């Protein structure tokens, strides 16, 4: 069943997407183009009979698929024509002559919740001279409200979205940091553990399980994946005395293998989880998507639970001891391998949950969604201090806030750049991170 993609409006994804152009622009010089053209050159004289010798065309797409039923008009050179995007989002307007045309998207025909990306000229000019085909791009974004909300309101909305994004990053980075702290491994396959959670939940919900059960199963199997990884791969490697850099490269190999295995089974398309289109809640003058709020609360609760686990229980104490000094922990009677196994399992659970929340936040499930945030997770971990759990938490929240707030000043497709630059700058001045200790830097 091909349902019209309903769009959630998570405040986070300011620019969710774009329009891709398929108009083939012949870059060959005009003389060459006319000689190689299979069309009879005499056709030009009888042009009035076929007005669509020259075309302006494009595809209107959103993050999760083509946008159909949108009216687009082109005027210029004494001509005006219109087209409606088809089921696959394509549109094409035949025009009588080459030249400059004003192409306009009828904003009122866009589906609810979809708007043109900020700063997109509409109408825009399209000029073509040497080609028979011209293309026009209209980037689409979600929740880009044309209305003039005050700066303060937008700021608060971004702030909440950033907090929600930061906390879901924290779920992944706490696991990464725990694994680093106890085993010393920088795990490049953590992104795939994130993807796996979302993909598994999608699989279970397609199989007919209710949302809560699908989510639970996805998270549980994510934990199982962590358990198996440690049991079948990392523990034997530790036994062999494999050094840390080879282990890091092995984790890269694992990441490639798992990513392409997911692609192999799941396909390259973006799929939506059930309930991905959530209502927008109006809190006073601020509007927030319900999913963003739920995600915020869920990750907050889980993180507080993990923090309590680490601080209050025997197991938490043992984990911190292993992270501090494995040899000493072993000497004091702590079963280091058991602790590490639990850390991998908990890391898998947290990553899978983070992946599910990330799928609601983007929104959509794809095979490389984990890879997309892996570097932000690293940035959070480094910002907070490698190997410190609470540092990872603080760092991730800062990265999430920074990513979302930077869109107030920065173009949206550069929002990750800011976070990565901050990471590099922090390394320059305080390499141990915010909560890290100096000797860890080496």
């Amino acid at each position: 069943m091909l349902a019209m993609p309903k769009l959630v409006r998570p405040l986070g994804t300011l620019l969710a997407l774009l329009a891709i152009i398929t108009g083939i622009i012949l870059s060959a010089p005009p003389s060459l183009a006319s000689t190689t053209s299979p069309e009879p050159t005499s056709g030009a004289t009888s042009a009035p009979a076929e007005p669509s010798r020259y075309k302006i065309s494009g595809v209107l797409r959103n993050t999760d698929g083509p946008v159909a039923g949108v009216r687009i008009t082109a005027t210029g050179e004494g001509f005006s024509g219109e087209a409606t995007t088809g089921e696959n989002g394509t549109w094409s307007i035949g025009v009588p002559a080459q030249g400059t045309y004003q192409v306009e998207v009828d904003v009122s025909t866009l589906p609810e919740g979809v708007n043109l990306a900020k700063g997109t000229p509409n109408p825009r000019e399209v000029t073509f001279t040497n080609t028979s085909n011209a293309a026009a791009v209209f980037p689409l974004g979600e929740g880009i409200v044309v209305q003039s909300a005050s700066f303060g309101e937008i700021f608060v909305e971004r702030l909440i979205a950033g907090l929600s994004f930061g906390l879901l990053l924290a779920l992944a980075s706490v696991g990464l940091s725990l694994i680093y702290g106890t085993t010393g491994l920088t795990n490049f396959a953590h992104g795939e553990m994130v993807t796996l959670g979302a993909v598994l939940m999608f699989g279970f919900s397609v199989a007919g399980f209710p949302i809560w059960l699908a989510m639970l199963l996805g998270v549980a199997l994510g934990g199982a994946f962590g358990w198996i990884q440690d049991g079948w791969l990392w523990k034997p490697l530790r036994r062999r005395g494999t050094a840390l850099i080879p282990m890091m490269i092995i984790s890269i190999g694992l990441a490639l293998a798992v990513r392409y295995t997911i692609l192999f089974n799941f396909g390259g398309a973006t799929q939506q989880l059930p309930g991905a289109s959530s209502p927008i809640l109006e809190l006073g003058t601020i509007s927030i998507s319900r999913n963003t709020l739920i995600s915020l609360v869920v990750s907050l609760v889980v993180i507080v639970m993990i923090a309590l686990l680490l601080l209050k229980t025997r197991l938490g104490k043992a984990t911190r001891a292993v992270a501090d000094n494995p040899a000493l922990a072993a000497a004091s009677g702590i079963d280091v391998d058991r602790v590490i196994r639990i850390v991998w399992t908990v890391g898998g659970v947290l990553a899978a949950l983070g992946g599910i929340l990330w799928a609601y936040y983007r929104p959509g499930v794809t095979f490389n969604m984990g890879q997309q945030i892996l570097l932000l997770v690293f940035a959070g971990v480094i910002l907070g201090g490698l190997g410190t759990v609470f540092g990872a938490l603080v760092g991730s929240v800062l990265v999430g806030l920074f990513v979302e707030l930077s869109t107030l000043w920065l173009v949206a497709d550069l929002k990750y750049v800011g976070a990565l630059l901050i990471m590099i700058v922090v390394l320059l001045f305080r390499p141990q991170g915010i909560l890290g200790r100096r000797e860890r830097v080496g």
Partner: protein
Amino acid sequence: MDFLNIFANALGEIVSPTTAAYALASLGLAVHFGFTGLLNFGQAGFMAIGAYGFAIPTLLWDVPFVVGVLIAVVGSVIFALLLGIPTLRLRADYLAIVTIAAAEIIRYVVTTNELTEITGSANGLAAFEGGFYAMNPIPRGTYNFGLTSMNERDLWIRVVAWSLVALCCLLVFLLMRSPWGRILKGIREDENAVRSLGKNVYSYKMQSLIFGGLLGTFAGMIFTLPRGAVQPANYQTELTFFLWTCLLLGGMATVLGPVVGAMIFWVVLSLTQGLLYGAIEAGYITFLTTTQAGQLRYILVGVALMLLMIFRPQGVLGNKKELVFA
């Protein structure tokens, strides 16, 4: 199934310009990691700088070929300096994360819609290779080499690419035998020992980063010239990881290892693709689509990288004593 054609294609990969580009970029990684011990995960960024640094001035200001190359080289040196200053004093895994982040920053910047006028955004740039092919001394025509034949453009890019690879291999070989190279190997083995001999370790590491990065930059140009187009999607982190696979396949602390590794990598990829596609078209394999067959090969790359690291970390040509890690 046309076995002859499949094998001819696979053998053709040995001398293809893409293989040369992979060999050159992996040679840069060998300088970084194999000889100096620097964990560079951003070689794709250096390659992107080579491609864009050459293509942008050529298209924007119509500069001659040599000037375009020089601009790319300068860009690459600046990039290496920017990367090295914050990270070369830190532990290896910090450099790994910072280089991978820097390569992604470059990719985001050339992809942003704001710079479409300059970088062509996601569609990339095209039609900048004219200056290179204008220098082609080979007369027009078709040249036959046993199983395969090519035109004068294909031959010219192959001659230039592989001459460059040979030249760089010779250069790396001579450099690594020189006192300079011995210091790099010393840094790999024990940084503090070299420091105690009064050498400026930071400076030597920086020189190694710049030199290996330049090899990556040249590789970026070789990679993009035969395509006549440069697109940001080609310079993702996966490119870096494939380069690492080539390096580890051949042997990380060897001069010819990266070249052999790149050849094996591409021959195996081409061979598996030819055989799988052939088997699917002939109806021997019915449970796979051709798209899935393409993805299956990359699953194998990942598994191969893991197995290589676990069972033969020194690669095909390497010497176990020269491993960066014990």
